[in-house]
Structures are given as C-alpha cells and as structure tokens.
C-alpha cells in the first residue's frame, strides 16, 4: 500500500469558525474539520481519488480524515488539517520551551484508508478520556 511522508500544518478556516460557533457537535463542524488538504500530486501518489479517507499518523497519534485538494492549495509535500479536534489527534505536544505545541511543521505519514470510518468529534475526545458510550 502506498504511503507518503508529508509536513503537516494546522490553521484556521472560515468554515471551521462558522461551524465551531454553531457547535462542535454539529454535522457542520464534522464536515469542516475532518478533512486533510494536500496537493493533487500527493493524492495521486497515494493511489486514491480525492475525497477518499486516509489515515494520518504522527509521533503522537493517528486519525482518519478525508483527503481533499482544497481551495487554499498546499505545495507538494505539505498538508493541512483545519484546527480542531481531528488535527489535535496528531499534533505533537512538544513546545520548544515556549508553551506552544508544534501546531505547524511536523512530520506525518499518510496512507489510504478508504474503508475506515471517520470518527465524530465527541467520539474522538470522549473516547480518548474513556467517556465514550457510543451513539445514543
């Protein structure tokens, strides 16, 4: 299976801002934040079509998200997950002694995961804390 190593960043997007204010448990927030934006070349290298799910693995965790090219293009080798619950599953908490986690510029491995399910925000966060009881 094709695997690629990319440099990941996470920043704000207006869709994320609007959805966040509407509520982090809404479908809008899920749609806005559970995607990874990468260059079309990198999607091709993975041997998948745009909008297929991928697994993103970093030194501190992993997450399933949907791979898209996105409007604000990344150059080949760079990828972006909008700030929020999904991005923070993989953001390394190391801070270079400043208090600020490594939100921008950390290595990730991306691999196809077309048949894996993207988890919801609550499932990810409550799940990480042992509170997730499943969809009611």
């Amino acid at each position, binding site marked *: 299976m094709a695997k690629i190593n990319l440099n990941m960043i996470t920043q704000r997007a207006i869709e994320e*801002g609007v959805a966040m204010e509407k*509520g982090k448990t809404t479908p809008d927030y899920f749609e806005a934040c559970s995607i990874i934006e990468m260059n079309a070349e990198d999607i091709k290298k993975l041997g998948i079509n745009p909008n297929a799910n991928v697994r993103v693995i970093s030194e501190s965790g992993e997450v399933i998200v949907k791979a898209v090219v996105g409007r*604000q293009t990344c150059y080949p080798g760079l990828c972006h997950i909008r700030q929020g619950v999904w991005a923070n599953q993989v953001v390394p*908490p190391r801070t270079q002694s400043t208090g*600020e986690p490594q*939100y921008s510029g950390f290595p990730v491995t991306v691999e196809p995961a077309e048949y894996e399910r993207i988890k919801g925000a609550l499932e990810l*966060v409550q799940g990480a*804390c042992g509170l997730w009881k499943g969809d009611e």
Partner: protein
Amino acid sequence: MAKVITGVGCPYCGASCDDIEVTVSDDGTKVLEVKNACAIGNQVFHHASTPGRITSPRLRQPDGTYKEISYEEAIDRAARILVNAKKPLIYGFGSTNCEGMSAAGRVAEKAGAVLDNCASICHGSSFLAIFDNGYPSCTLGEVKNRADVIVYWASNPAHAHPRHMSRYSIFPRGFFTGKGHMGRKIICIDPRVTDTARVADIHLQVQQGHDYELFNAFRTVLHGGDIPDMVAGIPKEKILEAAGIMKKARFGTVFYGMGLCHSDGRNHNVDIAISMTRDLNEFTKWTIMAMRGHYNIAGPGVVWSWQFGFPYCIDMTKRDLVHMNPGETSSVDLAMRDEVDAFVNIGTDAGAHFPIPAVQHLKKHPWITIDPNICMASEISDLHIPVAVVGVETGGVVYRMDNVPIQFKKVVEPAGGILTDEELFDKIYERMCELDQEA
C-alpha cells in the same frame, strides 16, 4: 416593535469590530437580525439565542452522565476543588471580558493557582519576542488612515479575521489613503496559496518553517548585502522586488500570525520580524502587529500585567512570589508533566484545541468547564457551569488586537438567568473565603 441596537461589538476575532447592528425581539430575549458582521460573527449572535442552551450547571455522575445541579452547589464544588488542589491550573479567557479576567485573577491568587490564557498556545511566543526586542506597533486606525504597504506574513485574515482587510488594512479609504485599495500594495507571505494571497499584489510562497531565513534575507537586502539566488524557496529577484516596495512605503505595517508562532523557532521568528521592522525604519515608517485571535485575548495580557506583573503563564503557587516562565509554567507543558491536580477551563475549549495527549493528562484530575456552550471541554469535564455570552448577554471592556480598549454592549437578557463570568468568579471567591474560615 423590534429594537435595533447600533454600535455593538462582535465577540469573535481579534479585529473586535464595533459597528455591528443587532435587531432584537420586542421582549429583548431573541436576536432577530445581525448586520455588518462576518459569517462567523453572525453565527455567534444567532447561536446565543438558539433554543436548547444549557442554563443550569451540570455535575458528572459515577455512570458518566450529567446531572443538573443548582448554581449554589456548583459554586461550592468549584470552590472546594480549588481549595483542596495543591496546584490548580486556570486556563482560557479567549472569550470573556476584562471584568471576568480580573475576578478570575482574584480566585487564582486565593487558590495559589497557575493562571494562564490562550496566548499560551497562540501568541505567547510573541510576548517572549516583544520582551526581548520591543514592539514598534501602532493602532488599526493608523493603519487605515496612513498605511500604503501592508504585509501579511504567516497570517490569513480572509479566514481568521474576515473583516480585517475591509475595515483596517487593504480596502478602506482613510485620511491619507483616499484611494483605498488602489493606493495600497499588499504583500502576502505564506506557504499555502491562501485566499489572502489571492488578493495580494505579491505572494511569496515560502517553504513551511523557513520564515527565519526569509526574514534574514530581507534584512540582508535592506542593509545592502547580497543574498543567494534562492532563499526559503523564494527566488532572489522576488525578494528584491518586495524589499524595494517596502523601502519605498510612506507607512507600512507587518501583520503576522500563527505561521510564525507555531513553527520551529517560535519566538525567534517573531524576534527577527521585529528586527526587520526596526531596519525598515531606517528608510521610512514601519510598524508591526500580532494578529491576535480572539476579540479580547489581548485583555488578559493587559489586566494581569496590571494585577500581577505578567501577561500569561502566571505561577502563583508560591503565593506572594509570583513568577512566569513559559515552558515551565505554561499550560500544555504543565499538563504533559502531570504537574497540576485540578483544571479550570474558562471561555475556551481545551478539549478541542489542546493536543490530545495534554487533554488526557489533564483529565486525570478534576476538570471544571465554565463556558456558555456545549463544547468538547464541557463534554469531558466533571463540572460544567454555563455563563452568559459576553458581547451578547453581557457587556464589558475588551482589548482589540492593537490593545485599544472597547466597551462592548449587551444586546439580550441572559438566557434562564445564568450568571456572568465576573459574578460567578466573585461567588467562587466568596465561597473559598468561607471555606477558609471554617477550616
């Protein structure tokens, strides 16, 4: 008759727009229409009066579910958690007013807590650079009226501060900038082709994490030195062109964002940005400004510097010996070293915005969330206390990104008689004093 309230402040981003018009229902409980706000600001006002808001505190039960409790009980529990903890952490304040921050400061001092705000994971490294290198800044009014060259470096206002470009930097016509957009040059430096890059005259697509080299190249050029043919992915002639425009400005401003503070180098990236601004002042007038994220995230820096002498990462565990040392007393580092034994999340969402390992560490101890809405933090905490939405259900003083204080207005009554942040912290403080006396 519906009532129109003008001159309302918007409680979302650091641009803190204060020209919003809100139409409220007859009985003053519901927001009907919002004018002038961006898509996000619009959502903030409408969301506040959406049915289904949480109006009473909730306590986590042994089976993992929440049970509604009274404010009195919630205040007692919060006070007891803070009194019993050896080193509680009170973090957040991205979305509250200065009155609430001040009241929380008193609670933190009483509890011997670490008091920290969202700058800790945002513009904290800007503070470090500013301490070292100064801050040749200005107000957004000066930018609007004077600036003819704007640099957006590692910031994307089209998404993060949607009205920044139209209110202050690119499009408005000011006193000396009567031609508006036509009279201004815009330079955007970003590794992505962002929507901000699309409105810029020059976009330098810097390699991610190599901003320091690019700043260094600009400084070298400004000092008359030669640079390599390619620096940080940018050809030499593009750098010379941009530096030439910057030197010829009548008044320029560098707006920089998270791309500098979150990448390798952190405060050093900001440090050299300030040095470049200083160099540019050899030729003409240049200023620099941090694109602060929330409408009042400049507030805690101002309020707590006045109260305690430090803007963030304030360790009060040694009681009368207050100190600040990011890396040691910063929230994420404290969490990762398991140094705190209680956590208060106020006016932010650490559950969604901290790296997940930090969340897991903090969750080992009592977690209190003080927030108007259901968010990730509220859904994993042991105690959730809802409060009034600042800028919608209560007014107060906020500091805009250029450190200009603005009086925000209340537009509707708080839903279901919920308390404001200030009232809540004052009550927690009083209860802590009572518990002290009982002991």
